[in-house]
């Protein structure tokens, strides 16, 4: 029978680390354990966690998506300019943003799978194209402003009697997590992981490998769209709103024990990776460490996490129970 250790597998460390960090934060700041404070933490973490879920789909299929950070910026800047404070424009603009997200994901996926451009290059190119387009369109300083209703999901919450206000972000995060977990248990989820593990074998087993991977890119871009809506509300409009988020998302996924190159790791662990990253930033902030160090910390973490995964993989490579038969002399 499967033991708990097997079941949680490579993901186990990330949940442990998360717990440790939350305890550490609570030690430094006992108020952290109050519901309002915990919910505020979830609210801060939600955009990155949602991006990590999107990035997970792409990474577990054996690819990368570096374009999500600039896609977030584009979405926020476009929304501000088109809405320009007009409440009635909110819904149509959100529909437009979703369409834009779909398009970017589709282009990423099709270029990678049909033109056989490595996704690292495809999405790096997309990052540059999008950030150039934003710069051109805004001339460096975004114009316009978001409507109150657009900003609501990122800023406000819903009042639950006897509990206080629960942020929309937290609810959206829970919904995304649940949706992703269900998706990964569906037939599609199984084919996605198989594709990342061995795309030749998957294709020969009838998996539409190109379509599956393209869908992963679309999901990543849609996650970026949701994150953009939350960040626009939470942080407001700037041309730097999505900067570096692609690396934060990849760091989060790797922290979750998801193997770069695909085929291994769970989506909830990737999400937990994002929570770990956010908790770490919170702790550093509490300890008075400069926010300027965030990217340094992230760089150290991503290298350490990948090195750790490589060591684990090395130890897992034990000899098979039955020796391989002799090489076939032809």
């Amino acid at each position, binding site marked *: 029978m499967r033991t708990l250790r097997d079941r949680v597998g490579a993901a186990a460390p990330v949940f442990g680390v998360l717990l440790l960090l939350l305890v550490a934060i609570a030690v430094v700041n006992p108020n952290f354990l109050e519901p309002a404070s915990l919910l505020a933490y979830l609210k801060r973490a939600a955009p990155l966690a949602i991006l990590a879920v999107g990035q997970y789909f792409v990474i577990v299929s054996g690819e990368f998506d570096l374009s999500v950070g600039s896609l977030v910026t584009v979405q926020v800047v476009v929304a501000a300019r088109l809405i320009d404070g007009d409440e009635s424009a909110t819904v149509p603009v959100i529909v437009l943003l979703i369409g834009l997200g779909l398009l970017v994901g589709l282009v990423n996926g099709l270029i990678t799978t049909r033109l056989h451009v490595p996704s690292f290059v495809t999405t790096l190119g997309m990052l540059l194209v999008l950030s150039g387009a934003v710069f051109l369109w805004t001339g460096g300083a975004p114009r316009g402003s978001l409507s109150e209703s657009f900003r609501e999901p990122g800023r406000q919450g819903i009042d639950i009697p006897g509990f206080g206000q629960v942020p929309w972000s937290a609810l959206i995060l829970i919904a995304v997590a649940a949706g992703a977990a269900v998706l990964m248990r569906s037939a599609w989820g199984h084919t996605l992981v*198989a594709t990342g*593990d061995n795309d030749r074998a*998957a294709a*020969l087993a009838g998996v539409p490998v190109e379509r599956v991977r393209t869908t992963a890119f679309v999901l990543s871009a849609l996650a970026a769209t949701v994150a953009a809506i939350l960040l626009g509300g939470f942080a407001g409009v700037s041309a730097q709103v999505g900067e570096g988020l692609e690396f934060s998302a990849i760091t989060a996924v790797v922290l979750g024990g998801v193997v770069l190159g695909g*085929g291994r790791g769970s989506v909830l662990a990737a999400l937990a990776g994002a929570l770990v990253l956010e908790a770490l930033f919170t702790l550093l902030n509490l300890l008075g460490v400069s926010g300027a160090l965030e990217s340094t910390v992230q760089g150290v973490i991503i290298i350490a996490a990948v090195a750790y995964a490589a060591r684990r993989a090395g130890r897992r490579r034990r000899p098979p129970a039955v020796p391989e038969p002799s*090489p076939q002399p032809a």
Partner: protein
Amino acid sequence: MTLAMAGISKSFLGVGVLHDVDLDVRAGEVHALVGENGAGKSTLLKVLSGVHQPDAGTIAIDGEERTFANPRHAQDAGVAIIHQEFTLLPERTVAQNVFLGREPVRRGLVDTVAMEHATAALLAEIGETGFGPDAVVRRLSVAQQQVVEIVKALATDARIVAMDEPTAALAEHEVALLTDLVRRLTARGIAVLYVSHRMPEIFALADRITVLKDGARVTTLTAAELEPPTLVRLMVGRPLSAYYPPRATEFGDVRLEVRGGTAPAISGIDLTVRAGEVVGVAGLQGAGRTELLRAIFGADPFTAGDVLLDGRPVRLSSPRRAIAAGVAMVTEDRKAEGLALAQSVRENALLVLHAVFRRRARVGAARTRDLLATVGLRSAGEDQEVRFLSGGNQQKVVLAKWLAADPRVLLLDEPTRGIDVGAKAAVHELVREQAEAGMAVLMVCSELPELIGMSDRICVLHEGRLAGELPAGASEEDVMALATGHGVPHVEVPR
């Protein structure tokens, strides 16, 4: 320089591959080493080249005993091996390849001029005028690349050259060029060990012939003492010792039909497989066996010709379509193409259902246990990652994956390669059971006794064409005769 190998034995993990083999090659002689697939020819070459160390026996060069702990030792002793797969760097020039790793250096830089001069001299020596030392290897023909391999061997002052199936990748007219070249080598006093199972060139070149069978030397004779049919009999003549499940006694309607199937490596193939029938596909390396199966499966589709399933024409342009139409294929390379190694037994077993028959995935998941029992899988559990399984158990997972989809046609490419005897028997039983249940099976297998033991009928391919069809229980000689393109007995298949 002469080579003498005596009493060479080698086993891998307890399985004997070479038993007490003696072989000697004299200066200026072509000594042909022949035998079926699996007879131990390549292993013997690997012992000679220092890739494998023999468990027993000696290698002597000019009477002096040598130990080759690695390929470098063999090279330093004047032994060069021309492998089946080329080891050339395609984007480099001929001279760069010839001197790879041994580049002449002048003032700390590679002396390109000296390198090209030396290469040109060697090319002139063997009479090659078709290309120069500065030609880029990628632009050369396969035969010319082979010449480069040989020049590379000569550049290391090799006095003993062993060639492993050198004509396998060559076109007919290129074979003549190669035989010329081999004669020029022997004229220079080089000892040539020539591994092949193609009758015409063996008899055109060889002074002496050694026959290997099941890892042991059968005999060594001068070419003048032998006729091709005698040689074929020496290569394959052995009692059929293994047990195979009883053949089918009656068949259903034609399930799979290929008419004029043509793809890059095969042309004009006509064949039928009836429900309940196991049809074997025989042929030498490169005869187009795998290509035929891959074409039917849509992995590398036919460029011309028709495929009919149960009498209805179908277009199988991708594996996905073929699977949806009821075709399954067990590929030759289990690890690269058959399994997602980091996934569990269950994940692999359900992959085809998840990919193509989503609606049946839930039912399939409930049936996984039965399915694994059907294929006789012994593993720690359904959650075991397949990479930890033995080759035989991995192959059973592959079979379970396909059986889960209830295919009508099962294509098997070397289904028992690299698995132990017990697992082989289990696979044979399973294939026969599935055929009895109405499946049409088309099977490629390089082990002739196994192919003959399993097949209700055998299609033999030769250079991409159907050389003939043989009934159940055909002799290995008949199959080899058709496969080597030597003599085409017209045997009518009773229907």
